[in-house]
């Protein structure tokens, strides 16, 4: 039954906005963390419920272990190593994500995302014309992109689930998110922080282009 459930889960993970259908190193790394944590949690859950079942149904069994041992084993010995390992791994992974899933040395492509009620606008300061697009973010595939996010009105949250985690757009602040699309394609993006009645419709699309098509997509003449 568990296997069946697992298969259904896997099949049901795809989708334009699914964090479990990653298309870049950041989202892939987080999805991996999720599956590991899910497996460990399933084991821990079965352990606790199993112990509860045994304690109720077979009272003589649990009595062989002293109350003190029950508490020390389950309350300290069990969680501490797990939490220790998990917290350190997550810290290391967070540093990896801050680099955009790549190495520090790599040259970044910079774009700017501006959340307004209820539309996303994007600018491309690395390109000479610094064009503006609305509702569509163009990025080159296979390159690490640093998105500088801000807002002019209320708080929004910039989120492309298949590429990376989210970052808030806070008026008065600029926040940064690095991401990378492995392959050219279209990916869904949306606002994740409630920002008023238009919140549900505050979507955008990410078009990841092959390196050679990127400039054309921004409507820029290629240098001869």
């Amino acid at each position, binding site marked *: 039954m568990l296997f069946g459930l697992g298969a259904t889960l896997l099949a049901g*993970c795809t989708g334009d906005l699914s964090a479990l259908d990653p298309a870049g190193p950041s989202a892939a790394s987080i999805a991996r963390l999720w599956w590991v944590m899910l497996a460990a949690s399933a084991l821990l859950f079965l352990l606790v419920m199993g112990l509860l079942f045994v304690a109720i149904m077979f009272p003589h069994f649990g009595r062989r272990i002293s109350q003190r041992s029950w*508490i020390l084993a389950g309350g300290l010995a*069990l969680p501490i190593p797990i939490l220790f390992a998990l*917290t350190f791994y997550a810290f290391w992974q967070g540093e990896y994500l801050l680099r955009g899933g790549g190495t520090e040395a790599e040259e970044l492509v910079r774009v700017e995302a501006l959340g307004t009620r209820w539309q996303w606008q994007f600018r491309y300061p690395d390109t000479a014309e610094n064009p503006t697009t609305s509702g569509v973010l163009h990025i080159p595939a296979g390159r690490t992109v640093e998105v500088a996010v801000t807002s002019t009105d209320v*708080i929004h949250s910039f989120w492309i689930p298949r590429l990376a985690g989210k970052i808030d757009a806070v008026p008065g602040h600029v926040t940064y998110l690095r991401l990378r699309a492995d392959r050219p394609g279209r990916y*869904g993006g949306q606002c994740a922080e*409630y920002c*008023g009645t238009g919140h549900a419709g505050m979507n955008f699309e990410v078009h990841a282009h092959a390196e050679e098509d990127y400039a054309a997509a921004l409507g820029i003449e290629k240098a001869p």
Partner: protein
Amino acid sequence: MTDHHEKPTSPIALHHALDRIWGTKSGWGRLATVNHNVVGKRFMLTALIFFAIGGLLAMLIRTQLASSQSAFMDAEQYAQVFTMHGSVMMFLFAIPFFEGLTIYLLPKLLGTRDLAFPRLTAYGFWCYLFGGSILIIALIGGVAPNSGWFMYTPLSSDIYSPGINSDVWLLGITFVEISALSAAIEIMVTILKLRASGMSLDRMPIFAWYMLIVATMMLVGFPPLILGSILLETERAFGLPFFDPNRGGDPLLWQHLFWLFGHPEVYIIFLPAAGAISTILPVFAGTPLAGYRIIIAALVSTAFLSFGLWVHHMYAVGIPHVALSFFSAASALVAIPTAIQIFAWLATISHGRPRFSVPMLHIIGFFFVFVIGGLTGVMLAMVPFDWQAHDTHFVVAHLHYVLVGGFVFPMLAAAYYWLPHITGRQPVQHLSQAAFWMIFLGFNITFFMMHLTGLRGMPRRVFEYPPESGWEMLNFFSSLGSFVMTMGFALVALDFILLFRFGRPFRRNPWRAGTLEWAMPTPSPSYNFASLPVIDRRADMLDPDVLGPQLAAGKGLLGFPRDGRMELLAVDIVTGKPEHVVRLPRQSFMPLWTAIGTGFFFLSLLFKFYWVTPFALASVVFMFLLWSRDTAEKDDLGNLPIGNGQELPPHIEAERPPSWWAMVFALVADATAYISLLFGSLFLWISAPNWPPQDIGQIGLLGPAIAAVSLVLAAWSGRQASAGGGKGAVGWLSLTTVGHLIATTVFLWLALTALPSPRSHAAVASIFVVFIYAAMHSGLGAVFAGYGIWRVRSGFVSPRRNLDLRIGVLWHGFAAMVGLAAAGFPFVLASLTSEVSP
């Protein structure tokens, strides 16, 4: 007159004599009752009505989301519905319900007759009822809050929410929080001072330990929220730009203040439920609770940790990763004390002979649901995972697993366990099992797959979603499950009604428990115990079947009426040795009138009738001062007999009576709010854009120096007045009054004349509010000193009866500290920004 007590001859005569004093009067007199039995039940019933309203709102949400492009509600209606669902469930159901349960149970578990401040209990209830009603009326009127239950700015500020909606939340919830703060103070004092004779701290029933920790957390957890609400309301109403980034404010300040309250809040809701489990589970395991001491240690560490992990609600706002990792580690660590409790319960069950029963069924449901919620909680504590899951339906699923698992199931267990105590009847158990299974299955159908819905990308708070998103089937099942769950709750309601109507009466202690609440007749008499117990072991290992009849026969302490006054015993905090006799005030309409006055205060702010506000505030202060008429004594009473040949002084002649402690705790809450204000301003200096300000005014040294000197003088002379114990007190108190009045005038004058417009910049607004805060404290200090003069003049004070003055000393000292900090504050801010001088 104080020796006027005759020992009634029979238990029945004793019952009638005590009930005449403690019992609720009929007719309009019901509104005057202050008895914890009645008020506790009113709290719980009101909370259940709000639970039904919140549940109805949840049904609307699930109906809307069952299909992708539902036309059932539009975006604005949906916003009001989800905001109110969260706000009602958190502020009007969860907290008040456990407050009600605690108000009802705590004195019984501790072996006393009432809480420390019965009139405050009643006042808290009226504030809760009136404040909650404001929110519900706004909902019916279509102007309910609509920015989400955590009210993030700038969405909730006047530019983006120009209507009355946000004001309803800020003012209504603050009104309700008065009841939470008063309950916190009352619960702490009751647990520390009003226990059975011989009940030392390490003999307390474990529920009292839980509630002592919870009340302490409430005492420091709520002030940041109340302060934040006040600041946001001043921004909305008067344009003080605390959260406006264009004028030196910062939306993140609101998030810090809100979650500094909001995360401890989760444990504030969970721990009372865990306390109920730690009380109920050992009874059905047939063995005392395992790990009593380590559980207490776990509770204390939960309390500390819970104030160090609020930022895990803010991983995505752009805080540096190294800082986040501290909060991530703290969030992971808090799982350990919870694991300790879970395994202490498992250890208890495994060393006992478990019996099955309806409460036990709900406890098993709790284990199942709460463990899942705890595990997803650890997942969300991990920064990378949270960056994906934050603000999605994964979080919605997680928080419902934690709150329904960690609160609703334990409270259902508690309801089935203690309803026999309230009604005197045992359940018939035809519906109980079916109701449990419907709630349990319905809940899991609703929320289990919602984890996946969230990870597949569905954000919170969307009223529609694209059909091609692949979320529709998952949502449809969630909606289906929610209706099954609702029917389960309807069955529980029916089950309770049948219990009241057809339940089987029982003699005593139906569950064979070992705690004191069963050592009394059920339904419980208004005075709980006809005479007060003396305890010689841990208070969950007693025998109510032996103890009950003895106490009813008057063989304990204070087993007689005296002067028609409600009396109980106060004990030494640590040892539980009786210290003095607390003579409670009589029943009174004053709590109701004071709450109505408080209501006028909030309504005047809500409807912007600002000219009414000062009168409403003054009337509230005046009415609170009137409360003290009831407890006053014109003569020294000396020692009073308490039975069994012992004698103790009355509380007004005691060194550290409950009211003295209450003032200490109230000042702790006050100080927390003030420190939040000062640090909030410093946070703006660090974080907010558009700093430093152009101009923070010409304050100069003279004004702050005068204020500081006069406040130190006021505090010192207030101390002299109390030390002299009546003799010469009038002179000293007059000096205190003058000192306070000078300081009040200086602070008001500085706030109104020496500063540029507080609308210009958040730095100026901070200084302005700090000055007003100080002015209000010294202003109240003047009132209290003047009140002290009146009490001395009227003969209510003697060297033995100088409690009024000693409580005043605490206030005068605190007001002086607030004033000194306020006097120095502009200079600190100026030196930090360094480009302008005050």
